[in-house]
């Protein structure tokens, strides 16, 4: 198992840049999520780590060795493809033993290893079946079997649950995570599902348009997004942006929105122009005491919670409040924002302004 360092890696396809100078580090034994919308370069990044695509520039260091220009077969990694890519002309046992045969492992040992892996995954019974008739879950397990049988330095998985239906996804994602916790193998997992990333990952890197927007533990990314894109992409409903024109100086601890003073964490940055105050729906309270008001446009009942859409002078926002609180559509309500949970953004660059609250998370890069 190994640590993986991706350093200033860049990939161009002709004139098109799929991945722009990206850097992040995956620690030994981590379950690492590569998250982003479709077309943002997740697969390309993963394929560069695997050696299926060579980076245009930059370094990839696996287990202390620079491998960016080495072929896949020399990197000792395992890859689980989205469609599993089980060899259709071989049965389950052959599929799993295939990576061992390439190493020239003696037959008896291969057999032992395959059976060991089959037992871990609970697929002993289907070892001699052709892969053609297998269910999605079993295909997934065989694909995993082929990956773990060889004890590679790390596992790379490209939306491995993408081909399964919703119900089964959940089950498999738990199984996967449990398997990881048992084997403690460095794993990079690609997904476009932010919920999956938050649930499964030890760490997440969020990409957009080939750029690494942020990288860190799920909680930090959720609470302290580095960019408006991350703030918007993660969480459901996503973070609210109250847009305003103004100025923030270092040391300032409040901003003025439509004539009301709103407390924010002490700013460490200065900015001027089009700004946005970011606040998650659950950090908004309805309070008659507040001078900042809006009109309720809609309510959505979600069991213990309800999500209320409110029109304000700074745009529509959503608040998540207890269902016990009665709210009528058309009603004017006062809004209170938890000052410890506010992030200010410069809307032009999309970047978060450093503050006392988020500097721990954002200042390292």
């Amino acid at each position, binding site marked *: 198992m190994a640590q993986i360092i991706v350093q200033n890696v860049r990939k161009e396809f002709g004139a098109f840049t799929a991945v722009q100078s990206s850097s992040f580090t995956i620690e030994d034994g981590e379950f690492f999520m590569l998250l982003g919308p479709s077309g943002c370069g997740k697969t390309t990044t993963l394929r560069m780590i695997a050696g299926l695509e060579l980076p245009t520039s930059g370094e990839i260091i696996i287990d202390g060795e620079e491998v960016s220009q080495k072929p896949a077969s020399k990197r000792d990694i*395992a*890859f689980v493809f989205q*469609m599993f890519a089980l*060899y*259709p*002309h071989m049965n389950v046992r052959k599929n799993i033993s295939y990576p061992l045969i390439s190493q020239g492992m003696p037959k008896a040992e291969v057999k032992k290893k395959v059976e060991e892996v089959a037992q871990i995954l609970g697929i002993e019974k289907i070892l001699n079946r052709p892969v*053609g008739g297998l269910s999605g879950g079993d295909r997934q397990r065989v694909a995993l079997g082929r990956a773990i049988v060889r004890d590679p330095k790390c596992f790379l998985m490209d939306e491995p649950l993408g081909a399964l239906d919703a119900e089964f996804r959940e089950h498999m994602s738990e199984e996967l995570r449990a398997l990881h916790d048992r084997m403690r193998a460095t794993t990079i997992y690609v997904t476009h599902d932010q919920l999956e990333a938050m649930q499964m990952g030890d760490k997440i890197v969020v990409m957009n348009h080939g750029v690494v927007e942020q990288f860190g533990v799920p909680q930090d990314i959720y609470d302290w997004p580095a960019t408006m894109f991350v703030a918007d992409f993660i969480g459901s409903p996503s973070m609210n942006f109250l847009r305003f024109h103004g100025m923030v100086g270092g040391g300032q601890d409040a901003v003025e929105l439509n004539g009301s003073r709103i407390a924010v964490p002490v700013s460490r940055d200065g900015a001027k122009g089009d700004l946005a105050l970011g606040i998650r729906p659950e950090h908004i309270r309805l309070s008659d005491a507040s001078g900042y008001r809006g009109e309720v446009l809609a309510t959505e009942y979600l069991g213990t919670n309800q999500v209320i859409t409110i029109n304000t002078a700074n745009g529509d926002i959503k608040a998540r409040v207890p269902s016990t609180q009665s709210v009528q559509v058309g009603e004017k309500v006062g809004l209170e924002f938890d000052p410890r949970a506010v992030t200010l953004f410069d809307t032009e660059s999309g970047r978060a302004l450093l503050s006392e609250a988020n500097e721990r998370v954002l200042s390292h890069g």
Partner: protein
Amino acid sequence: MTYSVTEPSDRQKWIAGFLVIGYALITLMPLLWIIATGFKSPADAIAYPPKVLFEPTLEGYVNLFTTRTRVTEETLASLGEPTTWYDRIVRQYDMIIAGPSRYGERFLNSVIIGFGSTFLSVFLGTIAAYAFSRFRVPLKDDLLFFILSTRMMPPIAVAIPIFLMFRQLGLNDTHAGMILLYTAVNLSLSVWLIHGFIEEIPIEYEEAALIDGYTRFQAFYKVVLPQAATGIASTAIFCLIFAWNEYAFAVLLTSGTAQTAPPFIPTIIGVGGQDWPAVAAGATIFLVPVMVFTILLRKHLLRGITFGAVRK
């Protein structure tokens, strides 16, 4: 494609059966006639009205494989009793067997040239198609179009230039020349067909093999080839059928050592009157290799011709 949800009724099945069998009979009739003619005597072969029932004889086959000379009755008498069944057939016509005919050689030429060019077309076609499908080949689409465009002219339009080229290169009437020519003609077909089949094989299989520690060649050989086998087999059949039956170039470019069976068979007619049974026998035997080849590969052919619909 849509499928009827309801089972056809018995009556529909009968009608369908009759239609299929009727159609098969109509299309097979000329073939059956040729096979039958091969076993007729020359007189029966040209009898009018045509004979459906006749006494079978191997005369046609004997005539096909031998050359015969007419001899005087005294000579015939001096030879004593014929010792073999084919001698006996020939003697009825006051003739003796002078030696083997050239049919065997021509047939062998057909085998060498047909299978040789098929192998080459499929081999080159496969590696070219693989490269087109998997690598970033500069001007790929133009090249593929160019390869296809070699098919756009009727072959006979290029016959004269090819004839002159072959004469210049000393390839006239050589096996190598004919193999090269048929390979060149078939290559466009094989590149395009096999390209289609390889395109259908998800690239992930090879990538999985690369990651499993195999070289690209091993991945190609052990993962791509087995899956493309169906397509390659059906392509091979198409190539063989063309090379086997090709007539125009063969007439033009071969006359002796490398002559194939198609231009040879008609020349049988000229020897000793219109020997239709021998011609028919030659055509019948000529059919066998392609038929055997097709039957051997028919499992692949049926799957291959549906062009991937049944795969997976």
